[in-house]
């Protein structure tokens, strides 16, 4: 993974010093909250319902074991002993004192981490496929480009005050695990007909109150031009994006307002002015960064299918975990292992300091001391020897971190909701807990198969409800929490937005409604059809009828 050079380190160190002075001026009353708020937000410090919340960047999801240990230390020393991984591959702490914030920045800087631009109207943490560099289906590793774009966008003076926040996501695989179509800019590495790598550029995707699947404004652009092209997009957005209305300020609104064709023309005209400047990535610069992403020292191994098959036959629980949590690796004899943070009844994405330390030990022991945070709020070891899989699984079982549900109905994306967030209208975590227990107790998890359920506590959609196969949106009606269901969303390479099923339901009726939706799917699916395929074939009406059947109590809704 990338290691800071002296420039990165100096910048981060100086930032901590600067923030310490800003905090001191605020506490002394030299600046008021209106003046201080933009400064703290640019350093990832929010004021939430209970206290200050600190959001720490995990660049494109890559984390070292030592960094995770430092996060555990921060959780224990400065917070309540746990952290929360988010859909943007970041981690958040919920009870941070303003008087500790600068010390935490110093602690983070010591392990080459920071909080810069994890909030504010600027380019946020760049996210990526958590299997980057390891996936069997990958065409090109996007992490070099993630890092180049990170360095380019951090404290960029021209783009520090955009009309609104700005999110980039990258993938290098045909199967999109990074939800690139619902980001302000999505970049997909692929090959053109001559076999040359290049980026498809998708612009203006997003969720929130106006969900949009992004438009491809360029099918293929040489990677060396990707920074200049991103700059051209940012410039057009910075120039024409609305600043008069916060709800109309994202780039998706601009692209929709003027049309993708006109937007592309504006970008291309701008790009022609800057494409051959210093923004072009030289071979030397590419190689300098790429040196950080060279493969680890793999052993010459062979796949262990037969050996593992024997153990899987003997141990059904291991077999279930292998089926759902382990993915193929491009190097023979290795595997990708997902660690679910969605044990039934627990809080999705939360992990205690103790478990962070245990996971760090396991990363050292089994995966070259590195791990990934993925946007579905789980952790991933990307370089596990197949001969170690059973041993790793046993250790994860002992830690209660071997829940075999990756991609299944209880692997639920959940925003913090009204239990923590000052923007939320309803609580989302209890719904996830109810559903996780419900599916686990029903024994239907394996039968249902892959199904994404995403929950947001408000229209800002941090829980990605628009792109869940089943989406759940918490709303507040006359002071009471209700939950609207959407069906048919998807965040992959066939990205789609869910359609609203009907009236909102009170919390107690949500698990039953979800069960009737799932039962309708099970009763009508053909062969191995996925939920989404069945939904596309039979439409929304059978599901609507199942939920809002006249004899069902769920009609008693506001």
């Amino acid at each position, binding site marked *: 993974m990338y290691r800071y050079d002296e420039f990165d380190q100096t910048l981060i160190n100086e930032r901590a010093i600067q923030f310490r002075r800003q905090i001191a001026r605020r506490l002394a009353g030299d600046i008021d*909250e209106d003046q201080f708020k933009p400064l703290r937000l640019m350093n990832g410090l929010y004021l939430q*319902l209970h206290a200050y919340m600190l959001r720490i960047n995990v660049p494109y999801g890559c984390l070292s074991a030592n960094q995770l240990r430092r996060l555990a230390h921060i959780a224990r020393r400065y917070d309540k002993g746990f952290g929360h991984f988010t859909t943007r591959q970041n981690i958040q702490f919920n009870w941070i004192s303003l008087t500790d914030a600068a010390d935490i920045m110093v602690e983070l800087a010591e392990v080459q981490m920071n909080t810069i631009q994890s909030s504010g109207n600027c380019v946020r943490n760049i996210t990526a496929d958590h299997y980057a560099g390891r996936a069997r289906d990958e065409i090109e590793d996007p992490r070099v480009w993630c890092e180049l774009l990170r360095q380019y966008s951090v404290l960029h003076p021209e783009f520090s005050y955009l009309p609104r926040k700005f999110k980039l996501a990258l993938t290098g695989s045909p199967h999109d695990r990074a939800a690139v179509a619902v980001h302000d800019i999505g970049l997909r590495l692929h090959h053109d007909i001559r076999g040359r790598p290049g980026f498809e550029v998708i612009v203006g995707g997003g969720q929130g109150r106006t969900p949009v699947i992004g438009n491809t404004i360029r099918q293929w652009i040489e990677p060396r031009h990707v920074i200049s092209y991103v700059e051209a997009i940012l410039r057009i957005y910075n120039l024409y994006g609305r600043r008069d209305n916060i709800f109309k300020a994202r780039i998706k609104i601009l692209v929709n307002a003027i049309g993708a064709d006109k937007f592309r023309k504006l970008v291309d005209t701008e790009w022609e002015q800057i494409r051959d400047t210093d923004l072009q990535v030289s071979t030397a610069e590419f190689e300098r960064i790429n040196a950080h992403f060279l493969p680890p020292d793999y052993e010459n191994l062979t796949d262990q299918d037969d050996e593992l098959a024997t153990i899987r036959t003997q141990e059904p629980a291991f077999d279930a975990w292998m089926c759902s949590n382990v993915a193929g690796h491009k190097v023979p004899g290795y595997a990708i292992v997902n660690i679910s943070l969605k044990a039934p009844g627990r809080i999705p994405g939360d992990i205690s300091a103790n478990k962070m330390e245990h996971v760090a030990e396991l990363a050292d022991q089994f995966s070259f001391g590195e791990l990934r945070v993925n946007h579905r709020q789980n952790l991933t070891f990307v370089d596990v020897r197949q001969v170690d899989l059973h041993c790793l699984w046993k250790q994860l079982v002992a830690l209660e971190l071997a829940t075999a549900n990756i991609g299944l109905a209880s692997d639920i994306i959940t925003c913090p909701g009204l239990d923590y967030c000052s923007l939320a209208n309803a609580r989302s975590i209890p719904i996830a807990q109810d559903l996780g227990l419900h599916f686990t107790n029903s024994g239907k998890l394996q039968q249902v198969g892959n199904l994404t359920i995403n929950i947001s506590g408000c229209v800002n959609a941090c829980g990605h409800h628009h792109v869940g196969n089943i989406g759940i949106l918490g709303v507040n009606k006359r002071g009471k929490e209700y939950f609207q269901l959407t069906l048919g969303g998807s965040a992959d390479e066939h990205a789609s937005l869910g359609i609203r099923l009907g009236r909102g339901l009170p919390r107690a009726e949500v698990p039953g409604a979800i069960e009737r939706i799932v039962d309708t799917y099970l009763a009508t699916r053909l062969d191995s059809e996925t939920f989404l395929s069945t939904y596309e074939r039979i439409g929304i009406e059978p599901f609507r009828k199942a939920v809002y059947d006249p004899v069902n109590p769920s009609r008693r809704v506001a």
Partner: protein
Amino acid sequence: MAKILIANRLSDGLVVFYAADGSWVESITDGQLSYDDATADHLLAAGLADERDNQIIDPCLIEVTENDGKLIPVDLREVIRAHGPTIAVDRTI
């Protein structure tokens, strides 16, 4: 309906309530209640003064009910602010 003045303390961000002695306390039970507009106006004025004095942020009056000596905000959001997340904060997760 009774009202109480709630805010976040500047130094650590914790939720605090204005008490009868003019201090800010972490327990809603120790906060000063107002039962009339004049008292509520007085509380809010004091809170705004303390905000200007950089002690607290965003003071606002919220409605509360009294039940068996326990103060429960009317709005769920304020219940959660006053009493913490409704979910078990499980450090063994």
